[in-house]
């Protein structure tokens, strides 16, 4: 099978070998969960429960009207202890519902629904009711993604199985252990969006999964035309835009969405949740993640209730060497935020918990640009990072916008390759905010 890829990118050390062989351990319940209310991208939702309420695993505990919202569910059976702002993985405080484990262990799932027997509206409603968001990125509500407007027909449903972030192995394990669920979820999404073709985009460092996935396609695809496509192992191969370009050869237009080129891209974890929402009536209440890193003594792939505090995994589930721990990262090392403590809840879209030691977690002073051009070659969006950096340092927001700061996907490749350790992507993140604010101001002025 030929491998496909995109132009640019880089190859960070993979460091997946410590956790990759380990079978997923499932934690059914924990002593407490801190569930951030707003984990999705979109309009905020409000708690439906109050302190003292007894909630069951799977029960809806927060919701709101509106298309860009998804409901939130209790991930363990227990008592609501507090509803208060808590620090989250983005290093900001956000409203969270804190539930303490109760003795009984009941579940409150939805009824099982046959995705091929119900209407598409009912199927989309189920995806919404299950609180499914894209777990590969910003947490975009899945039911919105699966309902493109009629003038944007979808040709491809792409399963994002690249897992291009170093260290992370949870998607690999999910595909190894339960490929049927992933393929089933994919076939359901293809049915909902009316796509004729499904492609599992897999980096070629996971080529050993092809046979299992193809067996699952034979048994669970329900007649949908799904193929597995190997992709070059290269970061950011799992970036939505890069994945689409590698597989279809098309580029998502600037400012547009995958649906503009007839694609719907979903992460492996999201697709598994879709399958569970129909076949078991189970909402998105568990998160799969990899816990690893140099300071982690027992690297593992875990499935834990949403809202589990990283702290509560230690030392019973995972052990780490406190003396060597220098940095905690929620997610992968290329895009995941570093957090100040382990008192951070694991969210629906948390894919990893890295406990990095001092050999891995280095901090460098920013040097001066020597114009070597490494970032120019590596940028996955061909954005000329060195020039963009110069424009932002000079505070020339017009030039920054022209070069394309708003198209930056913040993959961090430029900062990774920079010999002078210039804060490229970090500056672009700020630059995006500044350019957006400036555009908003201009629009207001024009409106007057």
């Amino acid at each position, binding site marked *: 099978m030929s491998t496909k890829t995109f132009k640019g990118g880089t190859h960070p050390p993979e460091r997946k070998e410590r956790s990759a062989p380990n079978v997923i351990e499932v934690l059914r319940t924990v002593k407490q969960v801190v569930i951030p209310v707003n984990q999705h991208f979109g309009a905020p939702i409000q708690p439906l429960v109050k302190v003292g309420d007894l909630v069951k695993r799977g029960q809806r505990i927060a919701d709101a009207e509106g298309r860009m919202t998804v409901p939130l569910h209790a991930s363990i059976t227990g008592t609501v202890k507090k509803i208060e702002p808590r620090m989250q993985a983005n290093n900001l405080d956000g409203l969270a519902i804190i539930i303490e484990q109760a003795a009984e262990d009941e579940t409150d799932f939805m009824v099982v629904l046959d995705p091929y027997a119900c209407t598409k509206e009912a199927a989309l409603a189920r995806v919404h009711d299950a609180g499914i968001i894209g777990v590969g990125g910003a947490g975009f509500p899945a039911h919105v993604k699966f309902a493109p407007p009629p003038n944007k027909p979808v040709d491809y449903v792409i399963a994002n199985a690249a897992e291009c972030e170093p260290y992370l192995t949870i998607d690999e394990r999910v595909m190894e252990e339960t490929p049927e669920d992933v393929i089933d979820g994919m076939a359901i999404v293809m049915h909902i969006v009316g796509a004729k073709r499904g492609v599992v985009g897999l980096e070629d460092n996971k080529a050993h999964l092809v046979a299992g996935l193809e067996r699952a396609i034979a048994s669970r695809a329900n007649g949908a035309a799904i193929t597995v496509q190997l992709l070059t192992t290269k970061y950011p191969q799992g970036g939505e835009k890069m994945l689409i370009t590698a597989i279809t050869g098309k*580029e*998502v237009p*600037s*400012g547009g969405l995958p649906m503009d080129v007839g694609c719907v891209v979903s992460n492996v974890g999201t697709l598994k949740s879709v399958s569970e929402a129909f076949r078991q009536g189970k909402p998105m209440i568990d998160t799969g993640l990899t816990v690893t890193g140099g300071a982690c003594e027992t690297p593992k792939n875990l499935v834990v209730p949403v809202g589990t505090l990283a702290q509560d995994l230690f030392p019973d589930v995972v052990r780490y060497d406190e003396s060597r721990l220098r940095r905690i990262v929620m997610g992968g090392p290329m895009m*995941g935020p570093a957090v100040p403590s382990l008192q951070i809840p694991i969210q629906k879209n948390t894919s990893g918990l890295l406990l990095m030691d001092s050999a891995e977690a280095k901090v460098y002073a920013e040097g*001066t*640009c020597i114009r*070597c051009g490494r970032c120019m070659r590596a940028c996955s969006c061909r954005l*000329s990072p060195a020039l963009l950096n110069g424009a932002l340092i000079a505070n020339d927001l017009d030039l920054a916008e022209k070069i394309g700061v708003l198209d930056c996907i913040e993959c961090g490749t430029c900062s990774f390759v*920079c010999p002078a350790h210039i804060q490229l992507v970090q500056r672009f993140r700020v630059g995006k905010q500044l350019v957006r604010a400036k555009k908003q101001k201009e629009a207001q002025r024009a409106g007057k």
Partner: protein
Amino acid sequence: MPANNLLLSSSPHVFTGVTPRKLMLSVIIALMPVTIYGVVLFGVPALLVVLTSVFTAVVSEAAFRAATKQAIHIDDLSAVVTGMLVALISPPSLPLWMIAIGSFAAIVLAKEFFGGLGANPFNPALIGRAIMLMSFPAAMTTWHVPFKGIIDATTGATPLNIVKMGGTIADVGKGFVDNGLAAASQYSSTLWTLFVGNRGGCIGESSILLILVGFIFLLALRVISFITPLAMVGTAFVASWILGMDPVFGVLSGGVLFGAVFMATDYSSSPLTPLGKALFGAGAGLVTAIIRKFGGYPEGVTYAILMMNALSPFMDNLRVKKYGFVPAAKPVAKGAAK
């Protein structure tokens, strides 16, 4: 509970490990074959020129930064590279105080005055050479026959000099045979001698073969891009041919290849974008050929690259199309929308 010695920083949290020092070190390694060969050709005086130049460059940079209360970073080796480059494009017999002035000018006038590493608009080594060429025209154009020593050896013209003074390539070949540098004087044998580099000229520019070795090394480590050198040599070749000069001789003699590989690829004085690099190289190649044909100097690489340096910032506007580029919608003409 983790203690508060945890590091917090914005992602990414991993890096390649490539540093400016490693990049400079690879340039130094790429320059070693031509440097060593220059010493083989011209003996100890050439070695002294190189060492003096490097020493002066490093000391000037440290002294200037100390005097202006800036952090000293001679450990990034960029001054070593500049010092080597100034020496390699100078004649082997150059008095040491002259090379010291050239090296000082390269570091202080061309580099540190503009902000140091990464900020110099013109190639420092070429500025150093240009200043020496204007200040010491005689010493900078005194050439020597290889393997004959320098102190009491016969001086000889460079191949480009011979041709500039109205000679032919056959005259160049005859000169090679007379000096025992080639066995025969026919055209192919002359070109082979030029390719190997057994000829008079600047310390580092003579051996095309060893320059190519350095070029391939730098390409393999992805330290430089192939675009600029290819565009420069290609354009010089075509332009020489159009202007009625022997293009193969033009590329193999003189400093066009050394300039294309080690000078036109200078990070801070050349464009960053691929299209900019191509235009920069093409312009430098064209100007080189024009100077060789019509100019007062037999060689034109120095001024060709310096001229293109001045245009380099504008060439950076030739960016590649960003991912998903959508052309701006044309304003709808009045009435056309109806």
